[in-house]
């Protein structure tokens, strides 16, 4: 790779095509694991590049451009594809060869785009993909005639079958890079496509029989919604409970490692830094992986199978009334387990404004990390009374907390739409592609990419902040002969004492205020921090008894209201930074959530105090 001759000889391909043409599957097959995923400069659009060596030994660089319907770009993704193909992109060189990927079962749409590409007058070939599905449906394509009419090479591929792109690789290797014939041909592209289809393609049916049947059931007003509920339940169950044993294992593992290291190393600051800072910080990063992988296993499989757009179709109306889109549903549902995978899942929303709104409201969904503090406070303060004959008051309170999150998310989404003064129409115009069996290779590569994005770009921030919070809670140490817990004397303790002035109107005492500082790392940390502040050994049952005797009901309710909104999770803020590529939205999220939290707690505290709680 180091000698200049090889580099000069390198061939640059760009894969271009409509969404759902199987372009990414072809990319995976061409390049295998030799891929680099990054972002285009300054935007959060994924730039995927891979490499392969051709049979003649030439090194080939493959750029997988975002799927697009037209050179008349309607979104930032499509603008990238347009700019790269036209050689207008600031940091991407003009590709040597455009490989236009077309779904052989959807040629009417895909050939029109191929003709649009041909008009650019650049060397190109057409990869006629999904030939297996076309043959199964009895579609006959005269590739020689098609090639003659198009004026550039047409090669059949099956991206999901072993060896399904051998012909393409061979042909590209022996290709003379020339401008396509008929590149200057004018007139209506649609009319040209019609002509090609009538002379080169035989299509027994417009759509696949299986698609018609599945859609009849899966989009049915009743059965469709039942099926959707079942799928959602399965995802929720998987993310919420199936991932838990693995997360517990990671938790136990890091704790055990911490104990072991703690015993091996001499006691002191270094010991505390490694155990409470570094190991706890690393554990805090890795612990999210099971949920992320579990959720994306479902999302990738559903996306590949073609079901995800159908779910969006069923729910679009409901979500639109709140200023969102049908595509927001799955990211928001996932956020009930954890906002991190939920916010990452918002990538499946094409409209960038809808995606941003979804990301901004996702932290309002009650994530599982809020449960420890909810459980502690509800058990300590809410009696087990029966309400209306059948409901348990504790359960009712928990439900109210979840509902408050959902209602405020919808309200915030609505307000964002108003504030933005966005009167333009957000397009849906979503293709419902053919149903397909997800290919394990493509799902696995997708999972690997998600895991790497999380570990590399978010892990760093979470880890740094955890160590920083350790520092704040440890320094300066307690003076000789002090009786209060050490955290009381630390920077976090001092901060907490200051904060207690701000928090006095919402009923938080200084103990709560201190616990909220290390609790910025993650919500569940607040419980153990409270135990530390009350000089307990982290036993939640004892903690429950202590808070029940020391706090007023008004304080407890106020703290519950606080946790519905408060953005007490550095990981969420880190993922927002990563996914929006902007600190601005981190500050907006932080600001509006703290504002809502303070307001909600203030109202809760003052009203319940006035009522005598």
């Amino acid at each position: 790779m180091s000698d200049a001759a090889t580099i000069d000889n390198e061939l640059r391909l760009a894969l271009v095509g409509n969404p759902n043409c199987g372009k990414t599957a072809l990319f995976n097959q061409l390049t295998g694991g030799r891929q680099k995923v990054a972002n285009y400069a300054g935007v959060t659009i994924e730039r995927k590049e891979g490499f392969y060596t051709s049979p003649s030994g030439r090194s080939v660089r493959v750029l997988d451009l975002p799927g697009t319907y037209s050179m008349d770009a309607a979104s930032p993704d499509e603008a990238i594809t347009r700019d790269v193909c036209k050689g207008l992109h600031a940091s991407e060189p003009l590709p040597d060869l455009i490989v236009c990927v077309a779904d052989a079962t959807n040629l009417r749409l895909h050939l029109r785009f191929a003709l649009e590409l041909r008009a650019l007058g650049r060397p190109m070939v057409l990869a006629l993909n999904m030939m297996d599905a076309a043959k199964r449906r009895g579609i006959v394509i005269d590739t020689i005639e098609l090639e003659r009419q198009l004026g550039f090479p047409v090669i059949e591929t099956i991206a999901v079958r072993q060896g399904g792109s051998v012909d393409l690789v061979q042909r590209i290797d022996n290709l003379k890079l020339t401008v396509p014939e008929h590149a200057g041909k004018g007139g209506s592209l649609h009319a040209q496509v019609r002509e090609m289809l009538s002379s080169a393609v035989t299509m027994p049916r417009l759509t696949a029989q299986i698609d018609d049947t599945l859609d009849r059931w899966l989009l049915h007003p009743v059965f469709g919604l039942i099926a959707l509920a079942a799928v959602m339940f399965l995802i929720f169950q998987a993310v919420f409970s199936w991932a838990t044993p693995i997360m517990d294992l990671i938790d136990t593992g890091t704790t055990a490692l911490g104990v072991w290291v703690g015993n091996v190393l001499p006691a002191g600051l270094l010991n505390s830094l490694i155990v409470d800072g570094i190991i706890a910080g690393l554990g805090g990063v890795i612990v999210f992986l099971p949920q992320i992988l579990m959720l994306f296993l479902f999302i990738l499989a559903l996306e590949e199978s073609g079901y995800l757009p159908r779910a969006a179709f069923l729910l679009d109306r409901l979500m639109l009334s709140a200023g969102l889109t049908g595509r927001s549903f799955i990211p928001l549902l996932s956020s009930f387990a954890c906002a991190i995978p939920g916010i990452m899942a918002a990538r499946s929303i094409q409209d960038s404004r809808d995606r941003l709104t979804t990301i901004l409201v996702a932290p309002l969904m009650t994530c599982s990390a809020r449960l420890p503090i909810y459980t502690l406070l509800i058990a300590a303060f809410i009696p087990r009374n029966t309400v209306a004959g059948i409901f348990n008051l504790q359960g009712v309170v928990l439900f109210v907390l979840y509902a408050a999150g959902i209602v405020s998310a919808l309200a915030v989404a609505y307000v964002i739409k108003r504030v933005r003064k966005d009167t333009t129409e957000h397009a849906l115009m979503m293709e419902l592609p053919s149903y397909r069996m997800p290919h394990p290779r493509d799902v696995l590569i997708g999972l690997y990419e998600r895991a790497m994005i999380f570990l590399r770009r978010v892990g760093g921030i979470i880890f740094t902040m955890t160590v920083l919070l350790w520092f704040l809670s440890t320094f300066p140490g307690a003076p000789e002969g002090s009786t209060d817990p050490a955290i009381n004397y630390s920077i976090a303790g001092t901060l907490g004492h200051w904060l207690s002035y701000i928090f006095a109107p919402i009923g938080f005492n200084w103990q709560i205020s201190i616990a909220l500082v290390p609790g910025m790392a993650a919500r569940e940390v607040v419980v153990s921090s409270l135990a530390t502040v009350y000089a307990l050994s982290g036993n939640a049952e004892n903690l429950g008894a202590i808070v029940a005797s020391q706090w007023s009901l008004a304080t407890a309710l106020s703290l519950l209201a606080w946790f519905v909104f408060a953005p007490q999770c550095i990981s969420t803020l880190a993922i927002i930074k990563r996914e929006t590529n902007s600190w601005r939205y981190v500050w907006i999220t932080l600001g509006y959530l703290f504002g809502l939290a303070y307001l909600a707690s203030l109202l809760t505290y003052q009203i319940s105090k006035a009522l005598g709680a």
Partner: protein
Amino acid sequence: MRLSELAVKVPSIVREVESLGDNDVIARRLRDLGFVAGEPLVIVASAPMGGDPLLVQIGFTRFALRRSEAARVRVERADV
């Protein structure tokens, strides 16, 4: 007749796509997706809540269109 007024499963033909305003991205995109004069289409289904969006089959492809988007497409029934 507009596509948004068309009943489900009634085979129809596109007459034209109307632009709302000077720079109607949605209308331009509809034309790129194949909503051009003479093209046959049919509404396959509509969503459970308020019958919006619509699922439109045109060519070999199915598109989900919100009613506001479908209102840009002028159609006529194929059988009359």
